[in-house]
């Protein structure tokens, strides 16, 4: 198993280099220069030069990038051009909200998707059609719009949940949870669509396999055949679908956070984009890339746990 993890980590190095290089390269396209934008027109030439030096703007691109890369390895992602705060501190502050959303949506969509998929595979033709429609709508309708529709219905019309804003857990766990219901539900819709369909298809093909027939012929209860043996056989495709969904939730959280104005990385990065605050965008890009790598790593680990042949090796 450790060899799988090592290989995945080795593959992630070029990925991180590419992402950081692209974002750094973009910096050289900045119209005017960030130092000027940041200081405004009243700055003295000394202030201007000092800032340029701090941002390494006086150096050629390759050196700039090298300095940035070595900085990252020392935990230095630079400072926000807008607020002057350390990018790492900003990320540290905002990431937990995003992670809560992504993890919450992954758990919810796995639960609902698997239940729907199994239901659809074991009931008649109507339920199969139903899943087709649910999964088509869930994957084709824009998730920010679905989020707004849910908000319009459950927050504005029926006032069951707060429409926007975030309550820290420490302040009030109840309000924290209530405020997360709609964002997590809207984020998970696309995942439910994918996971339910994959579960349904995997379930149908597993139920047709020989070992299921042996179990049936031995008089094993249908509930055990479906929920224990057949579902276990669907482990790999379902894990793949859950991984793909979790990866889709990462950028999806940007829109959902902005819909519900949650103080996560998504709202931060959109603000930074509007303010040309490249160091923050860059830091967020690397954070998102690391999250994607982490999800892939988890899926690899789950794979090897699910497969007795790999586990034994």
């Amino acid at each position, binding site marked *: 198993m450790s060899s799988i993890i090592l290989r995945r980590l080795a*593959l992630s190095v*070029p*990925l991180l280099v*590419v*992402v950081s290089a*692209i*974002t750094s390269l*973009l910096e050289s396209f900045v119209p005017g220069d960030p130092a000027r934008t940041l200081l405004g027109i009243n700055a003295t030439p000394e202030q201007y030069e000092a800032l340029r030096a701090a941002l390494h703007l006086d150096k050629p691109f390759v050196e700039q990038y090298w300095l940035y890369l070595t900085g990252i390895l020392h935990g230095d992602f630079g400072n926000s051009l807008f607020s002057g705060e350390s990018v790492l501190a900003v990320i540290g502050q905002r990431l937990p909200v995003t992670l809560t959303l992504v993890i919450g949506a992954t758990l919810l969509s796995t639960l609902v998707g698997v239940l729907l998929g199994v239901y659809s595979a074991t009931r008649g033709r109507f339920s199969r059609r139903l899943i087709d429609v649910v999964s088509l*709508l869930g*994957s*084709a*309708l*824009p998730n*920010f*719009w679905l989020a*707004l*529709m849910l*908000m*319009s219905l459950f927050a*504005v*019309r029926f006032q069951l949940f707060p*429409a926007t804003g975030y309550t820290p857990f420490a302040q009030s766990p109840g309000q924290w949870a209530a405020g997360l219901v709609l964002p997590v539900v809207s984020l998970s819709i696309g995942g439910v669509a994918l996971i339910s369909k994959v579960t349904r298809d995997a379930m149908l093909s597993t139920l047709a*396999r*020989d*070992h299921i*027939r*042996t*179990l*049936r*012929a*031995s*008089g*094993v209860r*249908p509930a055990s055949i479906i929920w224990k*043996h057949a579902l*276990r*056989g669907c*482990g790999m495709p379902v894990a793949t679908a859950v991984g793909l969904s979790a990866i889709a939730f990462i*950028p999806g959280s*940007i*829109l959902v956070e*902005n819909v519900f104005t949650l103080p996560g990385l998504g709202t931060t*990065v*959109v603000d*930074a*984009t*509007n303010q*040309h*605050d*490249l160091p923050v*965008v860059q830091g*967020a*890009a690397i954070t998102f*890339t690391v999250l*994607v*790598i982490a999800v*892939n790593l988890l899926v690899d680990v789950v794979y090897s746990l*699910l497969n*007795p*042949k790999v586990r034994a090796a």
Partner: protein
Amino acid sequence: MTATDPLVSVRPRKRANPLAGIWRRPLTAVALAVVLTVTVAVILAPLLAPHPPLAQDLLHARSGPSGSHPLGTDDLGRDVLSRLLYGGRPALLGTAVAVGVYIVLGMTLGILAGYLRGWTDRVIVAVMDVMLSVPIVILMLAVLAIFSQSNVAAMLTLGVLSSAGLARIIRSACIGLREELFVDAAKVSGLGPVRIMARHIFPGLVGQLLVQVCLFSGIALMVQTGLGFLGLATPPPAPSWGGMVGEASQVIQQSPGLLVVTGGLIGLMSLSFGLLGDGLRDLDQDRRRGISAGARKPGRVPIAKETAETPDTAPDTGVLAVRDYSIAFATAQGPRTVVDSVGFTVHPGEIFGLVGESGSGKTVTGLSLLGLLAPGGTVTGGSAWLAGTRITGLPERELQRIRGKEIALVSQEPMVALDPYFTIGSQLGEVVRRTGGVTGGKDAVRQRVRELLTSVHLRDPDDVARRYPHELSGGMVQRVVIAMALAGSPKVLIADEPTTALDVTVQAGILDLLRSLRDERGMAIVLITHDLGVVADVCDRAIVMEKGRIVEEGPVEDIFYRPRHPYTKKLIASTPSIATTEGRIA
């Protein structure tokens, strides 16, 4: 090379129109109509829009639909319909930019990698792997941080980074096409690789390309409108679909309908793209399989009422009795009878052979006795009786009570017969708890599992119980499967080709085991096989089936020494081992 290309004659099929047959799929046709209509309307916005998109009429702000404002007005009294028409322009332009790059780059990379192979392929695949893992949306934001409000720059980024997905699909399709006859012919006739790729590979990929383009268009539209919603792609007050959803969200309390209209249009469009892609894929697959789009699905098999429902009396002899038994499967051409009026009786302590070639209906007969016919199969006539109880037509719930306890199965392929994800002990333990009548706790179950594994002559039962099926040999797994079938002490064991998948040396061991189990337990065994050597070796009586009918029946000696039917004679003649085992029969 002139225009008269020698290859035209070698090419296997004409370039099929990917849209052919679309009218037989109403949903796909409607989706195409929606996409075309909306696109044309957006292009013609200056002609169609009743009002300028920015014209404010504060006196009629947030009005509902009316003659002059068919979809009402927004917060500033601007005409919603006109803004939707104009607002589609950045959305569809952005989508078109992304799709254009996606096609050009994806096709180029895919065809180059798939046709040239070698190091070109390796480099492109490596680049694609990285591209596929890049978080695309965040890089689009980085681009927008520099090229402020540039819809085109952002959507170009999306197209470039997504093209790896298309390239991967085109590459594998291309590798398949490369091997086809007409491409070889083109090479022989001296065409250069570029020309072969452009003229002979590309046309074969159009169908798949169109499917991917539709699906990606839906994604691109959602991303573009998402950016618009965030206010990143179109500076206000210019209308854009995403931006209008954002504006509607500001007045969600006052006019919730606005949200439904603006977002609904985006949803309708991306849904249509998705439906169109799915529909085209189905058409493409149908064409490959050579089915017309309207092909009938298999129907249901009608059951002959008088035979299936009229209860006949229990036969007085035999633990298993089959009377006038017929089975049919539903096919697109109507029901097909695979077992036709078969009848036989099996006595306790007897090994009964069900002999025939594949397709003779012997396995189907065996599985139907357990109520385990594959979907689409039905007993259409006659009945089967197990220990005096009619099992044909029993509801599933009743059958579950019988399986494992009264009648059990040993199937053909031991290596796939057990659940690969659970240890032998765990699976066997579950069956023991269910059918073995073990009342005690874990220890009693473990003890019974050990007994069962010992009874099938496995030397180290505790070690076997700890193992997963893939850690055992085929012969050992088959013994485990037999142990599982024995757990409920059934009266009848259906053994479907129990030795076919095994080595010859192992086969004899399994047959010996079946024989000794019969002797010890007085169990009846129905042995389904195509191997007359096996029949000669272990069976007492047998029937020979051909195309669903019984052609020969009786004691094994009679079948071998005095075959009456030409089919049986042919079978015996084609089994070389019989000649040598004949002496043993007598």
